[in-house]
């Protein structure tokens, strides 16, 4: 391993329930948490991961063809995101960064809505309250505070009305965000108020070009202890382990046990975004190493070992992926450019005379052109 992965030399081995060949490792602590994952449920996780990988690939392709301004790929992080997304309840609430397409997909966001921001026709793609997921955050780590505040709101609501569901807020961010003040302040607030929030850090080894060793001298999962927050380090390419660890943290938070932190150790197989060139900073040998840890192949091998993977499943999932990709492409290309005066929309919730004046002036100006 190159130096970039030095913080992998850890005091805490990542929780792993599937090895790189899909063989199941027994765990007294985590097995009961995923006892319900039968062949059918595992096939569902497999389909989710294949589909989101296909949606992601289509996003890359659409950008390369000029249909999207930018796309931040999740390739390699499917198990981390699907494992998290499928462990949540509909009344939980996610505050994510811009790469959590897999989580959004699990929250019921239509694939085409994932593209709106990146096509540049909108600043957000979906109704946060319908999905139980906020608009993706571009400022690194800012959303960790929003999740913590939301969790404080859940506490308030439950104190006011004990019948309020024991929902949990989830903050998704990456290894780079661990250096931001907002994430550290969020952990202070969460610990102080014992708020029901789960910090889910996908350590994909890079913040654009900067290796995680530039963000930390110790494993990321060792840091929450300093805030008094229990943490877990999990193999982020093992969807079973992610599911188990997330469920454990969610249950603790629901039961009044306060915040939790999860470091999902994974790898960003693609560029930071379509505007990035990772060949300038990454060793090809590293890619090869992580290719062998592919999360989808791992689950597929596990399904095979259970005798639960056959051509039927493979073909039906592939057909569904083709269909989702075709719909996504068609939906993307069909998105109209918004009306010019949309730029003035919703800046304020209440009337604003000066902005109304600017809007009227600009409308008059535009009206002066011969169409």
């Amino acid at each position, binding site marked *: 391993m190159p130096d970039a992965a030095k913080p992998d030399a850890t005091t805490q081995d990542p929780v792993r329930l599937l090895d790189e060949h899909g063989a199941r490792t027994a765990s007294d602590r985590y097995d009961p948490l995923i006892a319900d994952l039968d062949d059918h449920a595992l096939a569902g996780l497999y389909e989710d991961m294949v589909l989101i990988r296909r949606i992601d690939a289509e996003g890359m392709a659409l950008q390369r063809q000029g249909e999207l301004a930018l796309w931040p790929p999740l390739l390699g992080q499917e198990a981390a995101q699907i494992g998290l997304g499928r462990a949540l309840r509909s009344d939980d*609430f996610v*505050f994510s960064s811009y790469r959590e397409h897999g989580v959004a997909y699990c929250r019921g966001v239509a694939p085409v809505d994932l593209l709106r921001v990146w096509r540049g026709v*909108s*600043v*957000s793609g979906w*109704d*946060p*309250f319908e999905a139980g997921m*906020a*608009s993706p955050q571009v*400022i690194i780590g*800012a959303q*960790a*505070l*929003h*999740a*913590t*505040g*939301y*969790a*404080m*709101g*859940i*506490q*308030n*609501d439950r*104190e*006011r009305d004990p019948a309020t569901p024991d929902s949990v*807020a989830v903050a998704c961010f990456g290894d780079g965000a661990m250096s931001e*003040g*907002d994430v550290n*302040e*969020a952990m*202070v*607030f969460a610990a*102080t108020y014992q708020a029901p929030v789960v910090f889910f850090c996908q350590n994909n080894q890079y913040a654009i070009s900067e290796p995680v060793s530039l963000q930390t001298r110790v494993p990321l999962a060792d840091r929450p202890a300093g805030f008094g927050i229990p943490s877990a380090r999990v193999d982020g390419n093992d969807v079973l382990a992610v599911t188990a660890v997330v469920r454990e943290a969610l249950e603790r938070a629901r039961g009044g046990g306060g915040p939790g932190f999860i470091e999902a150790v994974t790898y960003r197989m693609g560029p930071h975004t379509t505007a990035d060139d990772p060949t300038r900073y990454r060793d090809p040998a590293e890619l090869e190493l992580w290719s062998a840890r592919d999360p989808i192949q791992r689950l597929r091998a596990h399904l095979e070992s259970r005798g639960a993977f056959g051509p039927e499943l493979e073909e039906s999932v592939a057909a569904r992926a083709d269909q989702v990709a075709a719909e996504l492409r068609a939906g993307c290309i069909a998105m109209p450019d918004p009306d010019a005066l949309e730029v003035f*929309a*919703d*800046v*304020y*919730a*209440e009337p*604003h*005379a*000066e*902005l109304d004046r600017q809007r009227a002036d600009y409308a008059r100006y535009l009206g002066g052109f011969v169409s």
Partner: protein
Amino acid sequence: MTTMTMGKALNAGLRRAMTDDDRVVLMGEDIGTLGGVYRITDGLQAEFGERRVMDTPLAEAGILGTAIGLAYRGYRPVCEIQFDGFVYPAFDQIVSQVAKMHARTHGLVRMPITVRIPVGGGIGAAEHHSESPEAYFAHTAGLRVVSVSNPQDACTMLRQAIASDDPVIFFEPKRRYHVKAEVDDAVALTEAPALGSARIARPGEHVTLITWGGLVGVALDAALAAEDEGTSIEVVDLRSLSPVDYDTVTASVRRTGRVVIAQEGPREASIASEVVAVLTERCFAFLEAAPVRVTGHDIPYPPARLEKHHLPDLDRILYGVDRVLGRVRETGVEVSP
């Protein structure tokens, strides 16, 4: 009606807002047991409990960032920033998040957050305790920015700010905290002047003198002094810095034909600069003289014993009035000091 200081009026406004809407929560440093360093939240934690009056960790970005999450959950947070110069750690959460959330979500997520900030100088304080950062916030779309100057406005405008579905940066001039006046803390908000409106603090004929917050008292004193010399000054208390109530301001300037604007903050790219620019555009044909700005210098806020050389005082405001009336002989000074 009760006679009270502006500080007490703010306290009464908070109590009224919390009573009227149980989704109003207060957050800040030292606001609970202590009642705030200026005692504006005095007694409120005892009355409403720790869930609604939260002492927070010492992290301004944390206060604003968690307020956003609470707003997502349907609460109306009122955040106290202890001093003007302490707001900058929260700047990103205010300008990148609070200000933009409503537009970002096509109006689906509202940010009814009020950020209370004690502001300005004239109190002999230490570094970072006397600043006037209004322009930073007025420059950001999505925020409303107000500054109060008297007990009644303080009480009513704070209630209006909390009731507003837009985020409001609410400036409280420290040097006015102890000013006393009659206050009705139960004014019907719909009947009170709108949050975004300016107020003619004193009618006059010859010069429009525009200011807000901490300098309103100084401007009224200047108008009184000018009256002795036969100059009638109309004092406009802007109250709202974003948006500015240009209907009221332009009507006054069109009547007087002369305008002086005074502010504590530095001149460069300031509220005074913007208001003068708009008045020049909209009232050009009515102006008898170039507008005059009387402002703080473009310097870091000076130590206490030098602040009198930075802050516009009665004499500097009257010098500005003399300039706009053409009474100042050429001194080589290009603008009003």
